């Protein structure tokens, strides 16, 4: 089967770093698979990068793709908007997909608006739900707006493709199915795709090193209730126990307790972890806007009227300086017991 005979009208844009696919690539496939099935069409995934292995491409097939467009070139190893957008607009023009999904990450949210302008298509940012409208077959794109106070459903009636970025962690990857078959198409890259105006010089990891709040399954966040920078250790400790990443309210970041990459809320990151724990966070609406799509919310705050308590699935009205160490002791005891059982 050649690429031309595979009718894949739904596309996802896979993300890679140093040749390894990121989880969000598989989350997008789960979204795309459902849409493609509803439309009765195939699902393709586009991988732009360098040195992405056949095994990785095969994993895309096993997790839902019918076709993989592989665009590999040493000059595409790192994300730079212009050449990625050139490559994709070429592919879109050649194959005319109906739906293109990418992750709402720093690169997806850069690439997709750039591409939408070039291909004259509509784009919806940071969707949390996607569906197909009955009768019309149009993509229904739902996203939180105005600080999560409303959910807006948006469609693109006339222009193609219908493009959306999808919030990371808002869906789960499909399990691998080794029986699934698909085609892998190597797309040659012309020099004209390159754009010498932006050069990647290097990369350094976030100094804090505890990881990225947007990609984390568990986030433990601290706020001004912690009173001073040293007390953020409480949050770091609990994050470590739970296997999570440290987040913070704007107040904590503005006081210099932790860097901006960790700020959660309207003027920081939006997170959708399986578990969010807020410690000493009162829950200004700006902060709540950034955590509303978390699966489980736990709040620890001595103030019974704290806003975050009202949103929480489990609210603990307690002094965090007493409660968190007590909780950590229990988690440590539990872990020790589990380790003993393991031996």
């Amino acid at each position, binding site marked *: 089967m050649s690429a031309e005979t595979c009718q894949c009208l739904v596309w996802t844009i896979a993300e890679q770093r140093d040749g390894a696919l990121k989880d969000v690539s598989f989350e997008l496939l789960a979204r795309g698979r459902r849409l493609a099935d509803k439309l009765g069409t195939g699902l393709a995934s586009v991988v732009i990068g360098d040195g992405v292995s056949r095994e990785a491409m095969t994993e895309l097939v096993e997790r839902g793709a019918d076709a993989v467009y592989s665009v590999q070139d040493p000059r595409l190893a790192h994300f730079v908007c212009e050449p990625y957008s050139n490559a994709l607009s070429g592919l879109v023009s050649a194959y005319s997909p109906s739906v293109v999904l990418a992750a709402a990450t720093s690169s997806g949210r850069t690439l997709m608006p750039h591409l939408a302008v070039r291909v004259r298509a509509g784009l919806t940012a940071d969707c949390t739900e996607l569906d197909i409208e009955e009768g019309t077959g149009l993509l229904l794109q739902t996203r939180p707006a105005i600080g999560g106070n409303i959910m807006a459903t948006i469609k693109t009636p006339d222009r193609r493709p219908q493009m959306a970025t999808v919030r990371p962690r808002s869906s789960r990857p499909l399990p691998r199915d080794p029986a699934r078959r698909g085609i892998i198409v190597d797309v040659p890259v012309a020099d004209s795709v390159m754009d010498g105006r932006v050069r990647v010089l290097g990369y350094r990891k976030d100094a804090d090193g505890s990881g990225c709040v947007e990609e984390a399954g568990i986030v433990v966040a601290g706020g001004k209730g912690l009173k001073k920078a040293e007390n953020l250790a409480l949050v770091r400790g609990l994050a470590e126990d739970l296997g999570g990443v440290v987040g913070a309210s704007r107040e904590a970041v503005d006081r210099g307790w932790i860097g901006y990459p960790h700020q959660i809320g309207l003027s920081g990151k939006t997170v959708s972890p*399986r578990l969010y724990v807020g410690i000493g966070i009162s829950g200004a*609406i700006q902060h709540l806007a950034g955590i509303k799509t978390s699966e489980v919310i736990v709040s620890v705050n001595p103030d019974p009227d704290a806003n975050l308590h009202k949103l929480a699935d489990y609210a603990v009205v307690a002094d965090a300086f007493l409660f968190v160490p007590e909780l950590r002791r229990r988690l440590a005891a539990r872990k020790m017991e589990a380790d003993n059982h393991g031996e």
Partner: protein
Amino acid sequence: MVLQSFEAGKRARGAARPAVPSAGGTLRILVPIKQVPETGDVKMDPETGTVVRAGVETVVNPLDLYAVEAALRLKAERGGTVVALSMGPAQAAKALREAVAMGCDEAVLVSDRRFGGSDTWATSYTIAQAARKLGYFDLVIAGERATDGDTAQVGPGIASWLGLPLATYVSRIESVEGGEMILERLVEDGYQRLAITLPALLTVVKEIASPRLPTLRGKKRSKDIDIAVLDADSIDLDPSYLGLKGSPTKVVRIASPKVSRGGATVIAKDDEGVAAAADGLVAFLEKKGLL
């Protein structure tokens, strides 16, 4: 199939910007800003699904202040001009005056009823064409996104229309030399270091610099300054790309999500209470499969 870059014929219409860099290495910088509702004071038009901007307290999008600050610092270092631009109704002049009070030299309001209801695609088109009208810029510096729409799509969209190289989420500008800028951009778990050729478009994040407060002199200037107004007739525009009609995306439904999750509350007043609450939370997390 071999990938080619998209054909020149698809580029935005209108005369090319004069490719003349500013004299003597000074910088002419454009800062597009947005007026947004104060948080919590937002109404939606149930008919169009767009934000009602009339009668609502407004502020300059807080994330745009970092762009203004970054531009003013570059100007202080290199000399040049900072032009603030806002697209919106006549009231958006207030946002422009705030930018002038901080130190921007010029202010341009892009305003016309025909622009109403623009989505990010139509907005970026209109701002890009307005920028062409204003002549050469060495840099366009925008905020990472607006706190109301929260899309982060307009900055990259403008770069795409203008064919400018783009760096988003810029957290630090290291140097500007010989028409090239070295900078760092914030990505998920670290910082990417880039060299970018000017003219270019940057979107910046909070780490770039703390926004200054308006000075008394700036406030006085902001009251007196003439704000240039560009309407649809004074910009070279394709009418089919404007406003609600020219916007590829349409809002079909607005719903209010439920806020309360009906969660459990445990009150711990003493050591015993704290111990019980810790037991309770461990049990809760276990039940949810989170431990």
